[in-house]
């Protein structure tokens, strides 16, 4: 296996959890809800995903458990912000704190246990192709799903009526409400979807990336996912570009260090953040007015009048 091929495979693995979580959050924010609890939902997904896989021996069931855990936690968030009209920022932060603590409790019994990592696709001829074989046809299910997810979200947002309604709710909940759309119901579905995606992104870590569970193993990836959504200016294509760019620079800086290039490692560690922010800001500027801006109702609590 060539070095470049190995690097690309590492990059895809490093980017996938970010992409999964960020894609879900993008839909949530497009519906006008700001859920800062991504980190909490991811780590819950990691704990429950690992537990599910360890108990059943199936990566698929583990992934479903991760999705369910993310959904369950996001339901708490929905009950607070949609049901009780609580401030979304405060509720989201509380969700992260809750998730980190609760996942440690749930996962405590599984620390030190081992599972079989997620199986990788194997197609007789295709996977054996030089260079592109393993990259295109030798990944695990999470990777293919994350790509399909982003394409699906793009199609949903821009090519379906339901997606148009969701964007309308995010841009002006009062207008959407006046037109008779069930704003809170739509937002509830979006929040649940985002929770499921974050849970799956978290579950990817113990099921495929590093096949064991340790409390706090998401190590801030939920926050990076949140930042990616903002810098992608809420557009799925840019989100994918941002996630892969972040993953690429993260892996490249490790390789650069191993080559002994002599660049200060503190700068190298900051590089993924810098590069991603700069590139996405430049894309947004170049597109000018065509670039999407924040959903106008983002983070604003909606209480339907009677």
């Amino acid at each position, binding site marked *: 296996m060539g*070095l470049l091929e*190995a*690097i690309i495979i*590492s990059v895809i693995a*490093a980017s996938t*959890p970010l992409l999964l979580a960020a894609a879900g959050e993008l839909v949530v924010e497009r519906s006008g809800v700001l859920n800062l609890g991504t980190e909490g939902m991811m780590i819950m997904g990691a704990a429950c995903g690992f537990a599910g896989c360890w108990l059943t021996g199936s990566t698929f069931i583990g992934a479903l458990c991760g999705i369910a855990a993310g959904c369950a936690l996001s339901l*708490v968030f929905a009950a*607070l912000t949609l049901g*009780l009209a*609580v*401030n979304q920022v*405060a*509720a989201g932060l*509380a*969700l992260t*704190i*809750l998730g*980190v*603590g*609760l996942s*440690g*409790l749930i*996962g*405590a019994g599984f*620390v*030190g246990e*081992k599972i079989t990592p997620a199986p990788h696709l194997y197609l007789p001829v295709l996977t054996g192709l030089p260079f592109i074989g393993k990259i295109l046809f030798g990944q695990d299910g999470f990777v293919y799903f994350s790509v399909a997810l982003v394409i699906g979200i793009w199609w949903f947002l821009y090519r379906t009526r339901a997606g148009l309604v969701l964007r309308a709710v995010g841009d002006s909940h009062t207008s959407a409400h006046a037109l008779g759309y069930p704003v809170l119901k739509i937002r509830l579905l979006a929040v649940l979807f985002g929770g499921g995606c974050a849970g799956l992104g978290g579950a990817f*870590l113990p099921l495929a*990336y*590093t*096949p*064991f569970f*340790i*409390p*706090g*193993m998401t*190590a*801030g*990836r939920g926050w990076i996912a949140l930042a990616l959504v903002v810098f992608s200016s809420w557009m799925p294509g840019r989100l994918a570009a941002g996630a892969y760019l972040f993953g690429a620079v*993260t*892996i490249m800086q*490790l*390789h650069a*260090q*191993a*080559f*002994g290039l*002599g660049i*200060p*490692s*503190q700068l*190298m*560690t900051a590089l993924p953040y810098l590069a991603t922010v700069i590139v996405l800001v430049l894309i947004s500027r170049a597109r000018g007015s065509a670039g999407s801006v924040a959903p106008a109702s983002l983070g604003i609590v909606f209480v339907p009048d009677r």
Partner: protein
Amino acid sequence: MKKLMMTAAVAALTIVSTGFSASAADKLKIGFIYLGPVGDLGWTYMHELGRQMMVKELGDKVETTYLENVSEGPDSERSIEQLARTGHQLIFTTSFGYMDPTLKVAKKYPKIKFEHATGFKRADNMGTYSGKFHEGRYIQGVIAGKMSKTGTLGYIASFPIPEVIAGINATILGAQTTNPNIKLKVIWVNTWFDPGKEADAAKALADQGVDVIMQHTDSPAAMQVAAQRGIMAFGQDSDMIKFGPKTQLTAIVNNWGPYYTRAAKAALDGTWKAEDTWDGLKEKMVLMAAYTNMPDDVKALAEKTEAEIIAGTLNPFKCPVLGQDGKPVECKGGANLDNGQILGMNFYVKGVDDKIPGK
């Protein structure tokens, strides 16, 4: 509702363990500040085992509390002060980055005894303790020099502090005794604990031809990557053989229990003094896990090296120690570098192919 939820969340985050009995009048209250979660299987986990060993030894004479996931730096001051204010008379702060905050709180509470791990700043009521982990690293180097077929070792480093740099130096000095042309690639991940990133660093090293990986980070992620790639690795902090039954050569095991028991006993007797404790293989603060997955001659060599270090006939930093430029480093300890030079080490020795970050 929101308030209630926040309270629940904070309670869930700060898991506080206390003794069983409610009356604590004549008990010594001891507090611990932990860097990671107690289940990290690495650095924090070993301190937690040490605490448990102490509680087992001293029973109801002590009552302990720990705060986990406390970030290093100025932020930790609040947590240390929280323990100081809640009646803890002996407080262990268990990571290098708590040094200045611990000193600050120690000055504010002169009657409380503080013990800071791996630091170099002390006060009348603040002692330090650390393990001579570089002794274990030297043995790992000796083994790695023999075991590496590519002649290139990989080192996943956390932060450029003296302890980590001394570990890198001891490794290469050990490796040079068995393979004079050994190469060492260093990757700084700038974190103590991020399993994903540790795994990525291990993959990058493996992709670049490294066939023995050592780490100064806390999770078993690198061990697992090495197992997947069919190369060798050393465990860190605790015995990680479970994550690499065919991969782990040995591991440095941090054994804090005896020290915690000793310090708590001294505090109970009133004989506690702020001291600088630095124990190694001989005092069993540093232990080596079983030597596995290596030929008998390498195993014998490793055991011999360990015995010599324990006997004091071998010192990893025996003079002359050559700096990166090939010139001998000033030898303050006579035959060996003195403790101050090792504890404050900020230079690489000859053979390390890296630049210390920020230098």
